[in-house]
């Protein structure tokens, strides 16, 4: 501005100030317009990327919320189900029997094996649970919907084309004929995939669920929250309100800021060295995962909390001190409540980051195949992002859509947490 029209006493005296203002006005508005445009363009670009991400994940993932089921007429054969050994009876045999009865013309070992593979191996467990729950079904014939094998599921959902040569498909022509027969008899249908949301991991895609990972994430984050929230607040309050300002506190501050930027895998290495090797805590446990993630989230929480404490107006502190509140009372009664929205936001952002983290957990053995749903802090478990990683790496094609579905669940959790951050902010926010 100044370069173009250097202010000289001559112009200033010959033109009125308002004229100079008016002359510059157009340029000022143009600059503002340009800035707004850049801002909008930036937002639009990020929205586009976000929607591409969402569309691709949703597009791939939504079919996973449905699973192909086959209706089998199971005859609960009293010869197989001896009353005294119900737990160990040959349930797969029951499934095979009913499939054979449905397709009596299937002959030969190879073909029979192919036929048996239509139903998931989970069918036998399902029938077993049914019998154990209600032994009175023995002797009856009941139509039961059982999950189809993952290849059948993929075919039924249209992911395996019919028109390629037989040798290049995982579904053979005979199987297609059987499926067509089932379709005609209305014995094959897509149902809501409850297994996906309620089961633990499995190597059979049709039996794999994320509940184990959800529980693992829950326990891990609970430990993280219980440790990092109080410790983070205590550290922030101490540094901000009590610590003398000197070289040491400066050093600590620099270190905390650095820690926030350290790659998360480093915390995993630290956890391995300290919690597993030194303290001898169990591998793959949410407890250790929580501890490691605590180390990772603490700097975030401390930094956010300090910023939030700093933003509390000094007049409020003086008011409290002026009446004779102690430093601690001032902090606890006035400063902390006012800083709470910011602290909570920081905490939730830290927790959301911890929820999405898998790298540090690799080192402490939480990247693992775990079927049983964890029931406590020391049970072996994995977490949601690790489950996604493991599924993404599985050869079975049906895991592709399940990977996206698990990502959707993770995103849902993240959205819920961030919404909670917004809500808490609103709730606790007070004007002064």
């Amino acid at each position, binding site marked *: 501005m100044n370069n173009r029209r250097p202010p000289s006493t001559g112009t200033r005296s010959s033109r009125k100030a308002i004229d100079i203002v008016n002359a510059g006005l157009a340029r000022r508005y143009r600059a503002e317009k340009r800035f707004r445009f850049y801002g909008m363009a930036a937002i639009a670009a990020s929205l586009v990327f976000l929607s591409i991400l969402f569309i691709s994940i949703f597009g791939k993932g939504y079919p996973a919320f449905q699973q192909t089921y086959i209706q089998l007429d199971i005859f609960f054969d009293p010869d197989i189900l001896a009353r005294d050994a119900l737990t160990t009876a040959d349930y797969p045999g029951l499934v095979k029997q009913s499939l054979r009865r449905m397709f009596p013309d299937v002959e030969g070992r190879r073909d029979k094996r192919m036929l048996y593979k239509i139903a998931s191996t989970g069918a036998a467990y399902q029938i077993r649970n049914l019998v154990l729950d209600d032994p009175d079904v023995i002797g009856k014939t009941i139509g039961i919907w059982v999950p189809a094998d993952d290849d059948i599921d993929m075919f039924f959902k249209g992911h395996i084309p019919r028109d390629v040569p037989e040798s290049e498909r995982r579904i053979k022509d005979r199987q297609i004929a059987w499926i067509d027969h089932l379709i005609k008899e209305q014995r094959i249908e897509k149902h809501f995939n409850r297994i996906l949301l309620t089961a633990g991991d499995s190597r059979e895609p049709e039996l794999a669920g994320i509940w184990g990972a959800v529980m693992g994430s829950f326990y891990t984050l609970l430990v993280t929250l219980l440790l990092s929230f109080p410790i983070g607040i205590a550290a922030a309050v101490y540094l901000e309100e009590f610590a003398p300002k000197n070289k040491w506190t400066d050093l600590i501050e620099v270190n905390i800021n650095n820690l926030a930027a350290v790659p998360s895998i480093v915390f995993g290495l630290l956890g391995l060295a300290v919690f597993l090797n030194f303290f001898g805590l169990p591998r793959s446990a949410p407890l250790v995962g929580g501890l490691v993630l605590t180390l990772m989230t603490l700097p975030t929480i401390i930094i956010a909390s300090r910023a939030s404490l700093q933003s509390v107006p000094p007049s409020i502190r003086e008011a409290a001190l002026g009446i004779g509140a102690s430093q601690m009372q001032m902090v606890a009664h006035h400063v902390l409540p006012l800083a709470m929205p910011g602290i909570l936001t920081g905490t939730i952002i830290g927790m959301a980051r911890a929820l999405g983290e898998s790298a540090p957990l690799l080192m402490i053995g939480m990247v*693992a195949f775990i079927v049983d749903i964890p029931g406590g802090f*020391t049970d072996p478990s994995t977490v949601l992002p690790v489950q996604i990683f493991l599924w993404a790496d599985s050869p079975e094609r049906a895991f592709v859509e399940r990977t996206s579905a698990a990502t959707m669940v993770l995103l849902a959790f993240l959205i819920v947490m961030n919404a909670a951050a917004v809500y808490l902010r609103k709730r606790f926010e007070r004007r002064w």
Partner: protein
Amino acid sequence: MLSKTIITLTVIAFLATAGVAMAGSARDYISIVGSSTVYPFATVVAEQFGKTTSFKTPKIESTGSGGGLKLFCAGVGVEHPDITNASRRIKKSEYDKCMANGVDGVIEVKIGYDGIVMANAKKTAPMKLTRKDIFLALAKDVPDPNGGEKLIPNPYKTWKDVNPALPANKIEVLGPPPTSGTRDAFVELAMEAGAKKFSWIKAMKKKDKKMYKAICHTVREDGAYVEAGENDNLIVQKLNANPKALGIFGFSFLDQNSDTIQGSLVDGVPPTFDAIADGSYPVSRPLFFYVKKAHVDVIPGMKAYLAEFTAEKAWGPDGYLADKGMIPMPDAERRKFATDVKGMQSLMLK
């Protein structure tokens, strides 16, 4: 008021931590670590085992063969794994480490084979490669095509440059990074074998082993070989998007995606189930797991797990592992290892 809550919470959290830390001394499930190649097979066995027995489902970590053996050999006790999977045999150095740490009874179980395939999309014709072609196309330094016993930086741009019988497509291979077991096996089984076709390189093995290794195992870094990450599914997807490229991954991924991709022939043999099983497909490797003898009677379910893995319905030609893409061993070999396991035969490496 608030400060009290915070202090109480912290104390509770610490107590809880300390409390459960005490409780973590016993283990009632089998802990397995090791190779990511064996992982898809071991997990199926573990799941089957967990569902059909009263024992808990074993926990299986995918740590890589080397990482698994390191954990495995760290000592005896519940904090150490019971079994490690490996996509190669245990090394003498690792065995010695085991011994030094008191892990003296180690049972070796070979479970089957895995083929490493080079595949491309069905949209293009299948490639007919030799291991020598593979070496020349992918090594960082190759023998001077003008003769003489010297190396020059890899000059080949297209497959036709390597071998006039091959199509004039640009050399573009998507493969795993050096951290991966598949990559180790690939450079050893395909590239090193190809390099040996040059007699002077072969002769070097005796004279200068380090140099020999460097020649055979160093993959070119000029962009023709693309490190596509550990995720084999990703490589498969990229092949479909880029039909001229080749990808390197385990046989089970080819098996699962046979409608869109095809394996290249190596030395005239296609990577099929049967060809890998009978050993005619050259780029294949044995898979193992190692069991800590001292844990067999301590951790519940160990014997039953070993029985499940070595049962015909699991590792046999018609077993469920074959369904998952593992190539079973010949009958005689299976029998030998099954009896070894039953007899708790310890491995001896001299």
